[in-house]
């Protein structure tokens, strides 16, 4: 299927105007021996054929929608109101680019401004950027921010072992070969935030924690923030935004930077992307934040309007002196989150959060009653929790799958010694019936 509209007559007229005989004549600057390579690709398909092909491939996936799923670990199944995709499908949004020309981009600009506002409200922070790639890269940018805020001093970064293992990997990729020293990842998993306090000293630039953490646990980080500030360090908290529908926001605990994975805010699982990076901070650090920022102003006619602002922080102005190389944001995913939060609003997001909380606690309580199963941690949790099983979690998952259940995340791969541990997630989409089926099935297959 071609999307080139040119007729033969168009081509002839255009070539004549240019003063060449054939289109091939336009490529004489390309070294001849490399010009017009024969590409070995499948023969082109029409739209109808392509859709048929793609449908066949999609059916080769056994997706979570066809089964009962308790898998989360950083990507969550939630109900997405129909209105979200109706907005995402508007060509005015999805076929526009970065709003460089504000006079004809007020739709995107105001949507970003509102996104920034809703995220500020949700996190309890003061400034949000226009979004980042995802939760992992947003945390890596928090580390970059710390370096910029401390102007190269304070090279010690504390990473809680409760941060998503993939996020920590990404931080290491970004900072590999740099001058930063990372500590804390090998702390005992049951130690909690107090163990981090002991590690903070006058060389510490940043303390990074998650809320809820990778294991679903929630802690009040107020003391940790105070301890960090007392030594001149900053606190960054990586959040799940759904939890903030119910729980005290990190802004109220004294966090300096809040990052997070925005996928639960109306973005489908889509095999891991595109997702949405949340990146927020305090007013005093606005000049160190990465990515686009939208600010309010007025136009030549006195109307309120919005523009990209403080762009002197960014790569296209500062080039090698910029603190980050990012130029895009996750525009369309930002719009999904804005639409989701606008539709759910104050009461809807609280309802989703409470529903997740109660269902997860019901599931945890029921599983803990099973012979051979127990909860690994005693701490408060949101909608994920770790169970210790009588057999290896990976093996248990295979048995669950045979009965139509996608089990939790088997922790043995990332955490040696936790072969029998599974991280289970329950959201508002899991009915009591599903939870009961999981509990029954666990009892049945664990001792089979």
């Amino acid at each position, binding site marked *: 299927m071609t*999307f*080139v509209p040119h007729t033969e007559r168009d081509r002839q007229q255009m070539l004549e105007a240019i003063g060449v005989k054939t289109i091939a004549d336009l490529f004489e600057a390309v070294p001849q021996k490399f010009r017009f390579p024969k590409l070995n690709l499948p023969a082109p398909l029409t739209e109808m054929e392509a859709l048929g092909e793609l449908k066949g491939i999609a059916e080769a996936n056994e997706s979570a929608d066809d089964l009962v799923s308790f898998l989360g670990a950083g990507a969550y199944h939630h109900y997405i109101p129909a209105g979200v995709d109706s907005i995402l499908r508007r060509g005015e949004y999805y076929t526009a680019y970065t709003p460089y020309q504000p006079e004809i981009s*007020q739709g995107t600009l105001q*949507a970003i401004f509102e996104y920034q506002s809703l995220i500020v409200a949700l996190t309890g922070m003061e400034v949000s950027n226009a979004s980042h790639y995802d939760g992992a890269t947003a945390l890596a940018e928090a580390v970059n921010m710390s370096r910029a805020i401390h102007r190269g001093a304070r090279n010690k970064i504390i990473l809680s072992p409760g941060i998503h293992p993939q996020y920590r990997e990404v931080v290491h990729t970004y900072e590999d070969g740099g001058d930063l020293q990372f500590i804390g990842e090998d702390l005992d998993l049951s130690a909690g935030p107090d163990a981090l306090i002991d590690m903070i000293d006058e060389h510490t630039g940043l303390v990074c924690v998650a809320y809820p953490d990778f294991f679903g646990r*929630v802690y009040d980080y107020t003391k940790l923030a105070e301890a960090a500030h007392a030594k001149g360090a900053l606190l960054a908290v990586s959040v799940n935004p759904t939890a903030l529908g119910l729980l*005290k926001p990190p802004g109220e605990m004294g966090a300096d930077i809040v990052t997070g994975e925005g996928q639960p805010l109306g973005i489908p699982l889509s095999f891991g992307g595109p997702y949405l990076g949340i990146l927020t901070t305090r007013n005093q650090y606005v000049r160190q934040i990465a990515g686009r920022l939208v600010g309010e102003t007025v*136009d030549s006619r006195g109307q309120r309007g919005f523009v990209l602002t403080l762009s002197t922080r960014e790569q296209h102005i500062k080039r090698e002196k910029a603190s980050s190389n990012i*130029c895009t944001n996750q525009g369309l995913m930002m719009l999904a989150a804005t639409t989701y939060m606008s539709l759910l609003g104050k009461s809807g997001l609280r309802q989703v959060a409470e529903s997740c909380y109660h269902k997860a606690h019901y599931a945890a309580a029921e599983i803990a009653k099973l012979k051979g199963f127990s909860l690994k941690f005693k701490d408060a949790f949101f909608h994920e929790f770790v169970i210790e099983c009588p057999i290896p979690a990976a093996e248990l998952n295979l048995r669950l*799958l045979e009965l139509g259940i996608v089990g939790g995340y088997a922790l043995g791969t990332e955490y040696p010694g936790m072969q029998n541990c599974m991280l289970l997630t329950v959201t508002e989409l899991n009915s009591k019936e599903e939870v009961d089926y999981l509990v029954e099935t666990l009892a049945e297959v664990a001792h089979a």
Partner: protein
Amino acid sequence: MPEPLIYDLGAPGRTGVQMPAPDVPLADLPTGLVRDNLPLPELSELEALRHLTRLSQLNHSILTGFYPLGSCTMKYNPIINEETARLGGFIHAHPLQPAEMMQGSLAIMYHLQEWLKEIGGFAAVSLQPAAGAQGELAGVLMIKAYHASRGQSQRNKVLIPDSAHGTNPATSAMSGYRVVEIPSDARGNLDLEALKAECDDTLAAFMLTNPNTLGLFEEGVQEAIEAVHAAGGLVYGDGANMNALLGIARPGDLGIDVLHYNLHKTFTTPHGGGGPGSGPVGVAAHLADFLPGPIVGIEEEGSEEMGPVYGWHQPPKSIGRLKGFHGQFGMHVRAFTYILMQGAEGLRSVAEHAVLNANYLRVKLQGAYKVPYDRVCMHEVVLEGRWADAPDIHALDIAKRLMDFGFHPPTNYFPLIVREALMIEPTETESKEVLDAFIEAMLTIAEEAHSTPEVLQQAPHTTKYGRMDEVKAARQLVLCCEIPREVSSEQ
């Protein structure tokens, strides 16, 4: 009357979504951790959707008009991509489900890797980078790891032409490299002598955009690449302008060691108002072990009846993970769909017509506008937006006046080496009629610049908004709505 802000809409007690009440016994909420107030707005479903629909109508977009934003490849984004990316099997797929359950997703990624290898002339591809800038970071980190693996860590310098995108120097600096700028010559090529003078044993990499940001194919590309390789350096290719090369030349054949693709430019995944992008990287064989992972490989070869079994592979010396999970998978499906519909002939036709359109604009606009490097261009043409006899007119005025004719302005003030630059990339999906209308508007504007300059300086006139006060925005920072902070009593 501007559209109200979200916090000025709705009323207490309204909601746009009702969720079912929990069907399980309620648990105690965690003591001391429940928030007092959730200061989100309260809108009905219609209020919220009407607001966001009305906002959308304030945007210029590809679907509503010509969008010749240079270096961004604002071509038509096929609607079918939006259907295929939303197929149930893909959109509900959890990224941590075992590979055996996700053979459809892995098949998409595997074939896209293979096709990008073929299109670019590379030995291996990773789809992990989230955007072009992250693809660049991947590339530079791989180059650094490669040199380190050969005991060549003294290589600390990256050469970047003065016409390059700002991401190139920003990425190099992020990776701990020193940046040396290479000037351009009078024909718009990089200055080969200046390049060669920097080719020594501290050279880590040369970052090349080809066609360059002047829209010109680098005439000394082979000589430049040979010089860099002879000094032990590697060549990074910025694939931003790949639309001009599809089926025309393969960067890998030219000797480029690593290149990022922009799926959102070349392969029609939508720009989304600024993202999500997707920036896969392709590499020559000697860099394959360093790719960011995991990537998709074949576990078991297929037979006539059964397709192959796909699985995850971590390259042995991988620079590591660059983002969570597997890259921007939804964009992979869209790019896959597009390439499937194009085939080899279709892709070559894309590049040919992109270049035809740009050259048509070049010859029709030269004369009325100065074309600083006047030779056959590739997919975009760069003009100067200034005249000696209209000294008060700037590129910005031309850009703003174009809006009155219903066009999105070209990229302006970039590349930095052209004074008052207007960088125009028409793309292959625009018809001759659209180009003729744009040419007519540009010629009218050139006349107005001399006869009635104030019309340009005060433009735009017909848009819903006039020029914005950017200084005020930066000086009196207002970055969010006023958010009600009072503690609510109902919770």
